[in-house]
């Protein structure tokens, strides 16, 4: 039913305005998996403020720079002083920079899920082909990827720098590999915790405060208790206490299996046997976060 309105139709002239009216869509509909991927890429971009206002780009980009600058400085120092090794292990980097990582999770997890709850956009998603699990997986994967980018980028800076400083290639590659596995686990764990906490509240402010509280208070409490235990020479209990905060959990896993030197007081990491418990606890916690998110969103629905 295309109607044409010839505007001043001089003979042979091509100038016409075509009012084509409503056009139907007969092209492909790519379905659930495509929708999930779209949500993933949109959330991942959103975690760095891309496709959002200039204001919301500031925090994530700043965090990214803050994460990478120390690595760049270390590399510069290593190259300049012709050091035999990097001042910091690949595996230690994330532990040292944990405050920045926590802040990033605290700012971006609520951004990712609280907004949808607050502005009630969730029903629009669920009135489309995707299911609860697609939404949860897309959001989880997006934040974990964003965190991985944040934590892996400085490791790559260190690696490139180390190669420029002509440090041993095999050594550095192995270190980088271990570091990447460690930050991958850390990204999954922090993303899960951050999303679970943020998905409870539609208020972004509460979400930010709650995530910071959970991540820092648990770390503060655990490291204080560990220090006390260390002072009283009860070294056996130090390793077990590490199970109770996310960052010490990652620290335990990597000191047991990824050749990292432990940041625990006294430098005593968990033994291999204890390390297995650490790995199980980490994986269990990630799975629990996923389960809780699923439960939460089954209720939110429409």
């Amino acid at each position, binding site marked *: *039913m295309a109607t044409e309105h010839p505007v001043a139709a001089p003979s042979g002239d091509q100038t016409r305005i075509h009012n084509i*009216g*409503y*056009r*139907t*869509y007969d*092209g*492909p*509909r*790519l*379905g*659930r998996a*495509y*929708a999930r991927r*779209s*949500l993933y890429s*949109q959330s991942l971009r959103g975690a760095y403020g891309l*496709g*959002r*206002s200039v204001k*919301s780009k500031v925090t994530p980009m700043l965090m990214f720079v803050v994460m990478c600058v120390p690595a760049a400085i270390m590399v510069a120092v290593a190259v300049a002083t012709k050091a035999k090794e990097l001042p910091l292990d690949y595996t230690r980097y994330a532990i040292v920079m944990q405050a920045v990582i926590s802040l990033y999770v605290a700012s971006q997890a609520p951004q990712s899920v609280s*907004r*949808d709850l607050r*502005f*009630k*956009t969730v*029903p*629009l*998603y*669920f*009135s*489309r*082909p*995707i*299911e609860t699990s697609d939404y949860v997986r897309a959001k989880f994967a997006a934040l974990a990827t964003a965190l991985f980018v944040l934590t892996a980028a400085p490791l790559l800076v260190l690696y490139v720098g180390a190669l420029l400083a002509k440090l041993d290639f095999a050594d550095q590659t192995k270190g980088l590999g271990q570091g990447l596995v460690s930050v991958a686990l850390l990204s999954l764990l922090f993303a899960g915790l951050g999303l679970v906490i943020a998905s409870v509240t539609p208020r972004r402010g509460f979400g930010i405060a709650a995530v910071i509280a959970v991540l820092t208070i648990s770390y503060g409490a655990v490291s204080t208790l560990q220090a006390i235990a260390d002072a009283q020479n009860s070294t056996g209990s130090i390793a077990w206490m590490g199970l109770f905060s996310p960052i010490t959990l990652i620290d335990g896993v990597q000191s047991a299996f990824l050749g990292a030197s432990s940041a625990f007081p006294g430098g005593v990491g968990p033994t291999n046997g204890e390390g297995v418990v650490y790995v199980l606890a980490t994986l269990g916690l990630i799975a629990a976060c996923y389960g809780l998110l699923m439960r939460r969103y089954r209720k939110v*629905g*429409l």
Partner: protein
Amino acid sequence: MWTTGPALFDLRGTLRAPYDSRLISRQLCGVTTGVARVTMVEDVTVIATESLSKRFPRVTALDRLSVDVGPGVTGLVGANGAGKSTLIKILLGLSPATEGRAEVLGLDVATKGADIRERVGYMPEHDCLPPDVSATEFVVHMARMSGLPPTAARERTADTLRHVGLYEERYRPIGGYSTGMKQRVKLAQALVHDPQLVFLDEPTNGLDPVGRDEMLGLIRRIHTDFGISVLVTSHLLGELERTCDHVVVVDGGKLLRSSSTTDFTQTTTTLAIEVTDTDEHPDGTRAVRDALHARGVDVVDSGGGLPGAGHVLLLTAQGEETYDLVRDVVADLGLGLVRMEQRRHHISEVFKDSDEQRDAERKEAVGHGN
């Protein structure tokens, strides 16, 4: 075109199979007789429920609701808490029914939820728009969530926003929009993937009278111009009378009434008439009332308190002949007819009628008991 006629009628037998209702309505555009159209509307079912019930621990939201909805614009009327939103949730395949079954576009809601949601659009009653993104960005994202490839999503977004009446402002963040503009964005995200059916939940909520009229006109166009069937909920019957082909009234989760809008208005239209006085008939109103009484038409004075009360007569129009009768009576008396207008019905009147009916049934039942 004519050769398609018999083929269309065969659809009656293949109702359960997925079909494209639009295909049919577009073919209809070529068919010029009204008869064919009416037959078609009666022939196909877009939504069908069969003793559909939804019980929550404390309340029964839907109580054995059986209703068939054909293509076109259908109004779903009910007071708050009548079960409208619950029905939409079940029809989108998001909430399982306690008992009974339902089909949307020939697809079972219990097993084909995702397929239904791909072909159906939904505009919620509440706000659902993030304030810090532009309408274009938001609708493109929603189009992709419906499965449209990136390029198609952008093209359809531009088209759809233009159709709902958003132009340059679509590049500005939604936070700065008026309520009317936000409603248009909500409508656009429901239409962007070119669905075969849209659910509009209270689309005129919060709009001023002009915005309301524009929205109602837009809803009408969704069917006539876009070929998309519409299920629109409202608690204002008068509003739906102007837009809908068919009206379904639910109350307390039960079906109160389901009939075409013409039936509705034919049986329930109230006429308000006002006449002048002349020397011959110093009280023209009274003269008309008596004359109409003499011809067997019940006339009541309009209730007090309203402007013009006492001069306005209300009578129930039985059809075209009532209008003629009034005209003739007034002309015979030599009076001037100041106004003759249809009075809009409010949903409460339907409820009142049904209450009376229910009371009557109850009395009857008691009578039988004795």
